[in-house]
């Protein structure tokens, strides 16, 4: 889909000056997964009526990463971009089994790698070198395969949406894009049919989850338009 879009744009670019409004680059960053437990499914049932701890690691402990290419079309105020790439999320689940003289805590770590195509629309203000912006983002993701059997307890597709903010820093020949965004999952990502297929242990069942995330990225963009003359070097002409 992306290549078809680029092909279309490229073909028309020569006639319409489209290339003058195109920036291409790449980026990377870190993210923090924010897990919302929609409905817990504990594998253990206590015969005395106790409930066992069933929780997820905190926001700050769930550090993942993302790598992507970035393609932008812009005009004076608006920017539309695509950031296809791999987005990995890490988090842990903690389960307790309680006995009179001992309490066993089990930790299961997750690494979910998605191939994602976020689409962002940004409104930016031109402050010469800096161009701060804010906008919205919607994203389609597809979960990549893994040898970890826990991976089977998730459905493949994932849609998310959220807000982004940041700033462009124009360094004349390259443009940096400092970006932060919070994306909320739009649906449960656990597979209801496979929630008990957590591996040979079968020591826990997959809860219904929303996978939200806060992400920070730095991109390097190459503008295809003629550079503007406002940098310090230009002052000496």
């Amino acid at each position, binding site marked *: *889909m992306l290549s*078809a*879009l680029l*092909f*279309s*744009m490229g*073909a*028309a670019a020569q*006639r*319409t000056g489209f290339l003058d409004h195109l920036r291409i680059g790449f980026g990377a960053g870190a993210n923090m997964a924010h897990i919302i437990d929609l409905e817990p*499914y504990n*594998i*253990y*049932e*206590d*015969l*005395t*009526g*106790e409930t066992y701890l069933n929780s997820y690691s905190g926001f700050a402990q769930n550090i993942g990463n993302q790598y992507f290419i970035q393609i932008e079309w812009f005009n004076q105020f608006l920017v539309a971009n695509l950031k296809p790439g791999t987005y990995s999320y890490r988090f842990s689940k903690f389960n307790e*089994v*309680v*006995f*009179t*003289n*001992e309490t*066993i805590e089990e930790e299961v770590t997750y690494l979910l790698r998605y191939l994602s195509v976020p689409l962002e629309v940004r409104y930016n203000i031109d402050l010469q070198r800096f161009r701060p912006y804010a906008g919205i983002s919607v994203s*389609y993701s597809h979960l990549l395969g893994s040898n970890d059997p826990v991976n089977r307890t998730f*459905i*493949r*597709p994932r*849609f998310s949406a959220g807000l982004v903010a940041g700033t462009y820093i124009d360094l004349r020949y390259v443009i940096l894009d400092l970006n932060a965004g919070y994306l909320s999952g739009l*649906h*449960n990502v656990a*597979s*209801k*049919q496979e929630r*008990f297929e957590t*591996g*040979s*242990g*079968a*020591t826990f*069942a997959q809860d219904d989850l929303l996978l939200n995330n806060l992400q920070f990225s730095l991109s390097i963009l190459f503008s295809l338009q003629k550079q503007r003359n406002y940098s310090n070097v230009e002052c000496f002409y």
Partner: protein
Amino acid sequence: MKKVIENIVRCCLFSMLVFLHESCEINQKEVMPEDGFLKIYNHPEERLSFYPESIIELTGGGYLILSAVKDEESEIEYPTTNLVRTNSGGEVEWSNSLDWLAPSATLFHSGNQIGFVAMNQQFEAHVILVDPANGEIAATHPLVVTMPLVAKKDRQGNLVVLGYDFVTRSSWIASYSDNFILQRSNQLSVNTDLEYLVQRHLNKTGQDFPFFIKEYQTPDGNGYCVNCFYNYTLRGVFLDEASLGTTGDIYSFQIEEGISSLEHKSGSRFGITSYYEGNNYLLPDVDIDVSVSQNIKDLPGNPLYELTFKAAVCSGRISTETAEYTLFISQTNSSSLVIYQVEQESDSLVMTHYQSFDERVEVADFIQTADGGISILAGIHILGKYRRPVVVKMPEEQFIPEE
């Protein structure tokens, strides 16, 4: 420019198709928690060991689970009774402990109540009827049998009980009407004193013998196959339904070998699992003359090397939308529950299902549920130490072979 717009429209259409396809996977509203689940029922007391015996589906939905509970600090050596009621998703609604000893499979419906057979401290068997709403005892009825080993409600609603009479050293089979009045009984002489082994079986300190009662209907008559001690050995004894008189049997070497499960198919055809010479065997379709005595080794069997030593096996029939099957459920040396699915019509093994665990498991019972799936009751050693009941519910779709 027109071409660009065309390409963009194509891209949008393709994206919509992808979106629609993915939406199908996201929409999981048809999958309900009660369709399939796995639940381990833990009690925090480390000194308790749970030996699951039987599971039954309740009329209004949900399950009742019967376990024998051995308390290592108890002065009574025999296990007491524990009942757990769950909802249809396997979540506990109540749990109740009773003083009746050594409850023996199987749970059965009796009007609005659920019954099972257990014994008092004098080894006298009783029927105990409980209210499924709260687990309280509604009524008890004494049975003439002692040391009850297994019980079954037959097609006519009669209760058939196998016990052991330590005075006459014989296996004791008795049939009761639906209001628990003795109809007939028969004592099969063991000819040797096996009381100690039976005691160890009942108090869960010795070998767990595969006692069972199954029904069969042949053109020559209906009857029961009772796996019990008889004439020095562990035998599958065929009894006439009307008189409880023996007609034939399948014997093996003393009590070290025998049949672990049996299911009647049609006419003289049976499905059997057995163990001898250190191996387990599956005989999915064998011809058995119920009027003669024959050696288990004369029946051709397929070795099942993956099963545990002298593996416990539960067998039964299920019906799916497409066909009828016989299931043989057991456990492997690698801590998995295994289900051998044999098609009734073709007598062929069509599927083998595995459910893996980290810890040792042992199957106790299974039922086909009202929604067409099956619920398996097994014992699992949590953390490799504490024996507790586990229920695995599997949906019907898993038992329908793909074309």
